[in-house]
Every structure is written in C-alpha cells, then in structure tokens.
C-alpha cells in the first residue's frame, strides 16, 4: 500500500510541475435549445491529440500549452461546434450546441466523439439517452428507464414484471440505483412493471457493470446513475402525455434567465378513476393508484458556483375498501453545490436524504380487530468530491462520503378483540463511510489508466438488543437464540474496514480499435432480505450485523472495442469473471418479515459469475439500433443448500439475445422494434410428495436447488412514432403519437412453473390430485396508444 501511494504521489507531483506554464480553458457545454448541460460531450483541439469530455455537471477543464487552437465540441445527436480560440491565458469558454439538422454557425461533420467507446478507459458501461429510451417499444406504451436497460448485454431479470434487475450475476440489491445521487431503494411502481422514473424529468442514465470507478461504492454489482434534467433555462416549456397507465405533465421554465430554472414533473395512474363507476358499496372506497412527483431547481451564482436542489416523491397505494390498505414509496431530496476552486479544480458537495417506506393496515375498527404495520429505511449522507484536471491526460479525483442509516423493520401493532399488542421489530442504526482517490492518466500515448482505491468503513451501531445464535440442531433448521445484550445508542457493536482497489486500463490498437481491462473490488454493507421469486415491496433491508458480514465481490473484465465505417458501427466484446463472498441465502421455510430473530435464518455462501457479452451498435443513418448477446453463468455455493454443491441462481440465463432497431420511414415516422430471446431461468420443483393429516405435502427429494429450467423466453415488440410535421415546427403546440404492440405474436412466456393441488376438495381418505402449472405474466398481445405533447 505504501509503495502504491508513493508512486501515485510521484506521478501526480511530476505532472503538476510541468503543468505550471500551461493555460486552462474551462466552461460548460449546454443544449442551446433549453440550456440543459450535456454530460459526456467531448472538447477536442483540432490537429492535436488533446481533448477531454464534460463531467456529470456538463463541466470541462482543458489545460494545454498557450497557442491558437480550433476547439471542436461534439455530442451525439447534436451538430458539432468549432471555434477558433487564442488560448494565451486562462479562459472561460461555454458552448451551446444545437441539435443536428438545425442551422447553426460553423456546423462541421467530425467524428471525434463517436469513438468514445474505443478511446475512453472506461469499459463495462452502458449509457442511454432519453431520446433513445423514448423510441423503444414499451409495455402499454409507458416509456421506462429500467426496462430499457434490460435490453443491454449483461443485464437480466428474473422475469417479466419482477422488480429490479440483475447485472453480471448480481442479485437485485447489489445495484445502487441513484437519482441525482440519492439512492432509490425500490425503483418500481406496481411491483415491478413500471419504473419510478418519470421520463420527462430524466436526462439520461448510465450503468456501470464493471470497472466501477473508486468514486462509487456501497454495492457489489452495478451503479445505475440516473440524472435529472435541470429544467429549461431559456423558455417556458410544458410537456405531457396521455398513456394507457399514466398521464404525465411536466413544466419547466427559467426563473432568472441563464441563471436559474426549475422543473416540476408529475405522473399518476388512473386505473382507479376509470374503475370507480363500476365499484359499489364498500368497494367504492377502493384506492388503486401510483404516482410520482419530481422536482429540480438550480441557481448559478456566478461562473464558479452553482446550486442544485432536486427531489422525488413517489407512492403506490392499494386499498380495496375500508378494511385493508397497503402503500409504499420512496422520497428523496438532494442538495448539490458545484464550486470551482480554480480553473482546474472542480468540486461538488452533495447532501441527500432518502427514505423508502411501506405501510399496511387491516381491520376497520382499530379498537376491536386491527393490524397496522409500517417499515422504512432512512438514510442521510454528505458527499464531497473533487476533480483536479491537471492536464488533458492527467485527472485526479478524490473525495469521501458518510451515510447514516436508520432501519425500521417493523413498527407494528396487532389488536385482537380489543387486546392490543406491540409486535414491532427493534430499529437498527449504522454509519457507512468511504474515502477515495482516483487517478486517470495517459501514458506513452497508447495507454490510458484509471486506477484508484476506495477505503470503506461500516459501523453497526447500538441502541437495541444484540443477539447471538448457536449452531442449528440439524442443517437447514433455524439457529437457536443463545443470548442477547442490550446496547447503548451510537455505541459501535461491530465494524468493518475494507480496501477496495479499482483499476481500468485501455490500450489503443489503432484509431478505431482498442483493448481494455479492468479489475474491481466492491464491498456491500446493507442487504435486502428477500426469498420470493420477484421481490415484494415488503422486503426489508438489514445492515451488516454481528451475525451478517458485509458482502464482497471481485471482478476482472477484458474487452475489445472496434468501430467501423467512420464510426457508424460500434463493436464491443467483453468477458468477465466475478467472485462473491458472504452472499446471503435462507433456510427452508425462512420467515423474513416481522421477525426479530431473522438473523438466525440467514445462511452465508459464496458465488461466481462469468460470461461474455457482445454488442454491435449502428449509430448513424436511417436505420440504427443494436444487437447484443450474452453467454453467461451465475452460481452460488451455500452450506445447507443443494447438498453443499454449486447451483445456478434463480436468474441465471445461459443465452440472452436482444435485437433493437429503429428505422426512420420518413421525417415524421419512426418504426422501432425489439426482439428478446433468453434461456429459461432455473427453479426448484417438488419432485415428490407424501400424505400428512390428509394433506399432500410437496417434497424435493434429493434436495437439488434450481435443477429445472422453465421454457425459453422470446418476445417481439414494435412501435410506430408519429412526430409533428416539419412545416409545423414553429408552432408552440407539438404533438406526437406512439402506437405500440407488446408481445406481437402473443406468446405466453412462462414466468414460472410450479406444482399445486388441483382444484376441488378431496374426500377424506381419497387421493389428493395435483397438477403442474405454467404462469405467464403477459398472456397475450398488448397494444397501446399514447399521445405526448410539448408546449413552448
């Protein structure tokens, strides 16, 4: 470690000295139409090999020897902008890009930025713009960020409608889903059918599957970074849409032109509004809806300081009459301050609050018979980050993060015949901290290196009883409670410290091809307790405790990247191997909710995942799209499961193939299609059964886990987008129609297969009949129409 730090400091200092005589251009790159900053736009000095790209706030800093340069700024979907610059001293240079096709001065056609996939050091990253996501065919016509990323290589799901997604063999809780830096613990509406992100408010998403830079931490398998739009700072804009499930409305406008703007976006489902006339009696009070509100505002004090405030509130409500109610949702708030300490030192300080909670109640008379239960996970965090742009080939990032967690697994009251009993599960507290340093450097022109380290620490804090458990009577039975100790608030019960080295290397083979390699170690300190096929909103999170160790993973990846035909085609081939430690599984018959002693039901194991991902993208021309194919395996080894042998996870898919295509039939009409094929996921089936008390009890003789595969999954979706006529382009009201068909050939793709007792009561002493059932979540063709509009 000492050696590493010394080398690191030596490299930084040397380069720093040389940088003294240089000059720096810095500024922001924005969309000319609405003032939105562009993330990942490239700034390139023509005739040199010097260039950089904008960070997640649209900021760039480029340090070079003084001289006269032609700066070329480009961003996919926008016309390149080129500007002659006499760079003799430090300068602020902002760029406003116009969309491709619109007329702006000095439009040039260069292809510098489209080779990003080849030229950057980052691998295993997937980026989707909203403009692409919006064109994808979708279930019931609802544009969906999370379903879109499942069309990318290495991303799978346990099945249609299941919440969350799996990245390179990781379980759903191993993804850090962040909305403007704040974690979103449940990213689904209606269990898993729709994601909580309003497309009108999202700028773009970036998914890190591997080579995760040291600045990110806290989860093993991926980071899904969802960035919200800032809001139009040029003019008032109203956007909205009427879909099958949601109606949406968003408003954005400048507060002080060029200085401040805001965005407010809302969506609500209206299935209950439509159903209301048909419900009578007690059912008339049925509530069934989900909604979300997204808000963001920013203020630019000067060209060195900018403040952003964003928030999200979403909720699903199900209440069939007065007797029962169930709701869940996330709330997040983020305050960010961008500050430029110098032309080269960019700083961001983020403070966020995030809360996921659910509530359930039964019984219409709270004094007679009732059951009320709510649960939540609340976390607050402070996160300073610094980027030091020493030279175009030399960037240093460092920073840290502190997160305070409060877990409330259950605040619950049961009332039976007036007897009231508090059955709450004790709260838990924890503090997670991290510090990182990350250095990106170009060596000998051909090599780019991003290496860094994250030091993470987790403290499980006191304030509740701490339990110890003994060995189970037999393997597979709960571990018996052997003792408990009361603890003081904020006392550290147990803590862990982990070094998480990260490194990514790029070797340029030619202008259009490169090789990349990466390694990452990640640690995860909080865990989702869930043993259902699809995660339910009631699943609770637990911190690492004296009985549950932090999960750890190591991943190695190698990749080959190549572009063809003037970057019209992008090819990537990646292969990875990932190993997991301290993964969580459960004993048979585990009871995970409302259980104070849930730690006694947890099993610990290891895992491995490996695979190869191939993607071919076409980014230019009337026809565009991508093909992706993944060959993968993901397995677990847990003492007490599958006779202590390796078994495939419930979301293991050997083959996963996606074809996504867009074809511009005319200026107004775009046809999109998606074809998905994947190997059926494995599951455990009862192979035998026996009679007890007249019931037929299923049994899995041999104890094999996930030894049966459900049939393969395939589906074709198409959609047709009708944009407004070009000659009406200056009208203030612009309407767009989207006609979609999901599951075009109406295949009943199985979500699961299971055995059950056949309908009908068996007479005492008679045989119980059983049957095998295939469950299809989408059993038919699902057409949809939606209408979207913009008013400026």
């Amino acid at each position, binding site marked *: 470690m000492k050696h590493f730090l010394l080398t690191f400091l030596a490299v930084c200092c040397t380069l720093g000295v040389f940088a003294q005589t240089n000059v720096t251009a810095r500024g922001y790159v924005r969309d000319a139409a609405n003032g939105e900053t562009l993330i990942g736009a490239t700034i390139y000095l023509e005739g040199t090999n010097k260039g950089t790209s904008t960070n997640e706030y649209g900021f760039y800093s480029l340090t070079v020897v003084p001289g006269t340069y032609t700066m070329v700024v480009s961003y996919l979907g926008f016309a390149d902008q080129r500007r002659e610059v006499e760079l003799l001293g430090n300068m602020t240079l902002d760029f406003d890009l116009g969309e491709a096709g619109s007329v702006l001065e000095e439009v040039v056609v260069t292809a510098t930025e489209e080779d990003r996939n080849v030229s950057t050091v980052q691998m295993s990253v997937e980026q989707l713009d909203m403009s692409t996501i919006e064109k994808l065919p979708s279930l019931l016509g609802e544009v969906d960020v999370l379903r879109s990323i499942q069309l990318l290589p290495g991303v799978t799901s346990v099945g249609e409608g299941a919440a969350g997604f799996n990245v390179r063999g990781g379980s759903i809780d191993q993804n850090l889903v962040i909305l403007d830096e704040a974690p979103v613990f449940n990213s689904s509406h209606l269990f898993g059918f729709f994601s909580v992100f309003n497309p009108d408010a999202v700028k773009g998403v970036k998914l890190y599957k591997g080579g995760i830079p040291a600045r990110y931490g806290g989860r093993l398998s991926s980071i899904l970074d969802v960035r919200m739009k800032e809001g139009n700072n040029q003019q008032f804009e109203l956007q909205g849409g009427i879909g099958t499930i949601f109606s949406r409305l968003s408003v954005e406008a400048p507060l002080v032109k060029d200085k401040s703007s805001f965005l407010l976006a809302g969506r609500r489902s209206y299935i209950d509004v439509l159903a209301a006339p048909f419900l009578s009696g007690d059912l008339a009070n049925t509530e069934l809806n989900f909604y979300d509100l997204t808000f963001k505002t920013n203020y630019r004090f000067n060209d060195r300081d900018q403040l952003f405030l964003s928030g999200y509130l979403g909720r699903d409500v199900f209440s069939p009459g007065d*007797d029962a109610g169930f709701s869940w949702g996330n709330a997040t708030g983020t305050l960010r301050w961008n500050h430029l300490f110098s032309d080269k030192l960019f700083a961001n300080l983020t403070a966020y609050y995030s809360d996921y909670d659910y509530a359930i109640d039964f019984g219409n008379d709270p004094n007679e018979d009732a059951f009320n239960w709510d649960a939540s996970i609340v976390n607050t965090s402070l996160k300073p980050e610094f980027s030091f742009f020493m030279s175009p080939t030399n960037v240093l990032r460092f920073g840290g993060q502190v997160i305070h967690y409060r877990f409330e697994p259950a605040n619950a009251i049961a009332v039976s015949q007036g007897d009231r009993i508090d059955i709450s599960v004790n709260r838990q507290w924890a503090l997670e901290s991290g510090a990182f340093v990350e250095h990106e450097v170009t060596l000998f022109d051909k090599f780019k290196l991003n290496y860094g380290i994250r030091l993470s620490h987790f403290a499980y804090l006191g304030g509740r009883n701490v339990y110890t458990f003994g060995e189970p009577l037999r393997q597979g039975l709960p571990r018996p409670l052997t003792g408990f100790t009361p603890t003081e608030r904020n006392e550290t019960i147990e803590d862990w410290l982990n070094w998480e080295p990260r490194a990514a290397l790029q070797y340029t083979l030619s202008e259009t091809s490169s090789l990349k390699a990466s390694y990452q170690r990640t640690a995860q300190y909080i865990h989702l307790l869930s043993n259902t096929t699809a995660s339910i909103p009631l699943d609770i999170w637990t911190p690492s405790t004296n009985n549950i160790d932090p999960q750890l993973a190591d991943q190695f990846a190698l990749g080959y990247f190549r572009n063809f035909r003037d970057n019209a085609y992008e090819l990537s081939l990646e292969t990875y191997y990932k190993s997991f430690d301290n993964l969580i599984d459960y004993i*048979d018959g585990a009871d995970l909710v409302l*259980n104070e002693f849930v730690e006694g039901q947890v099993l610990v194991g290891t895992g491995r995942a490996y695979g190869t991902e191939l993607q071919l993208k076409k980014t230019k021309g009337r026809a565009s799209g991508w093909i992706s194919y993944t060959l993968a395996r993901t397995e677990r080894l847990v003492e007490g499961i599958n006779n202590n042998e390796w078994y495939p996870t419930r979301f293991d898919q050997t083959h996963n193939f996606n074809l996504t295509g867009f074809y511009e039939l005319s200026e107004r009409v775009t046809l999109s299609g998606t074809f998905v094929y994947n190997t059926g996921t494995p599951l455990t089936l009862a192979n035998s059964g026996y009679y007890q008390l007249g019931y037929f009890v299923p049994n899995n003789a041999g104890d094999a886990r996930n030894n049966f595969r459900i049939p393969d999954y395939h589906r074709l979706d198409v959609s047709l987008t009708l944009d407004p006529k070009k000659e009406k382009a200056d009208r203030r009201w612009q309407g767009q129609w989207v006609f979609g068909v999901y599951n075009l050939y109406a295949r009943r793709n199985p979500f*699961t297969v299971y055995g059950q007792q056949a309908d009908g009561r068996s007479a005492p002493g008679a045989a119980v009949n*059983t049957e095998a059932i295939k469950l299809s979540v*989408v059993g038919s063709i699902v057409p949809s129409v939606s209408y979207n509009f913009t008013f400026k």
Partner: protein
Amino acid sequence: MMRSLLLLALAAALCTCTDPIELTTDFETPELVVDAWLTNTSEPQTIRLTQSQDYYANRLPAGVTDAEVVVCLESGTACYPFVHQDSGRYVWTPQPGETIGAVGDQFVLGIRQGGVDYASRTTMNRVPPIDSIAVRLEEERLGLDEGRYAQLYARDFTGVGDAYLVRTTINDTLLNLPRELNLVYDATFDAGSGTDGIVFIAPIRFNINKLDEAGSFIPLETDDRIEVEIWSLSQEAFFFLSVARDQIQNGDNGIFQIPVANSPGNVINLATEQPALGVFNVAAVSAASKTVE
C-alpha cells in the same frame, strides 16, 4: 394473506394467465413416511406408514405393512402397541375412557421397518378452551359475499411458544383445502412475531368458514353444523406444518412465490441420524360445535 392482496391488485392490472402443463419429474426412490398425529381423545389412534410418491402420481400412497410400531410414555410407565390393520394403518384402541396421556407427558415413538430403527420424541402441549363459535351477519366486502359467517373465539395462553392447529368440519365435510389449513402460533400465523396471550387474531378466527374453489368464503345456511377442534402442537410439528402450509398455498403467490422447501420431519432414522418424512405429534384437543339457527 399479504401476498394474495398483492396478487389481487396485480391481476386487476394485467391479464395474467395460468395454463396446466405436463411435467415429468426425476423422482425415483420412494421413502418411508410417518403420519403420526395422535390426540388425547379416547378414540382409536392411528399411525400411517406409507411411501412418498411422484408429485404428479395422483393416487393414494402405498402402505408400509411390515413394521413394528410402539408409542411409550418417556417415563416408562406405559407403552401402547400400534397394530397393523390394513394398507399401512397401525392402530391402538384405548379402553373406554382411556387416553394415551395427559398435557405435559413426554412420548417416544419407535418404529422398526426393513431392519432399520426410527425414533421420535414429543411432548403433549397445552391447548386453550374454545370460548365460543359465533355466527354473525357480515356485509359485502372484497372477496366476501354478504351472509352469515362463523368465528372461533379462543385465547392463547400467556407465555411465548404455544402452537395449535384448528380443524373444522362443516356438515361432515372436513375443511382440508390448502387455504383452509389453519395454524396458530401465539394467536397469530407464525413464530417470532411477538404476540402472546391474546384472542386468536381475526383472520384465524374467520378461517373456520368453508372456501369455494375460487378461494372465497361460503356463507353459512340455517341448520349448518360447525364442529371445531383445536389441537396443540409441538414446536417441531408447528414448524413442519407451517412450511407445508406455505408450500401448498404457494401457487396462489404468482410471481411472488417462495422457493420450494422441504418440511423438516422429527422422526429420526437411528442408523443415518437423518429425519424420515413426516411428523410424530401428540395433541391435546379442545372442541366445540354449533348449529346455525
């Protein structure tokens, strides 16, 4: 319960469908099954020894007829031989008024079959009296038609760890659908919830009504006769039945199904020290009945 509510909402949103399919399993070797649920009533007590079978065999089990079966009080004061009658049924018939034991007694079960010895140990736990069976008119609400329904009133003992099975017969029909398996642990569904000493919670009280094939409760008619028994369970028997309950009801959970899990038995093969399939439990029983007026 919660999961079915979720499913209901889900079904409202999308036309999810189920199709029966043909499945072949890899089942090969039948295993010994011990079905030994005894009670302290003065009636013939039966232990069934059968074989496990393919899950989709759809037949009555094959009886194991060549075993020796005995139940003794652990104190050694009495032993009850169970004599084979037919197709794997081993019966001990008490003298008039005689019972196998009393609450607090510890019992051992011994089985010798095919040269292998099996044994199990259990305790007869306490059972609360049934206060009443009440029949009341209920208004229409989700999943319930307007009509008269019965409720079972009984109070859990103070002290954590009391487990019971509620068995209901309506007009000579034993309620034996998966959803009618009515288990109680400290007045609620599962262990670890922290309830204790209260009246059985409302869903358990209500679960003595008969279900139709769609899973809705059927209202009672005049002259319907409801007979309810509460059986006390050992911890092992409760855990076995709770896993079995979650498994046989699992199909209703749709996309939220839990993994297939084996119910852990408490009859141990003394050679391998591994459990055989099935449970030995001796229940104390309290009973009540009511005729709808």
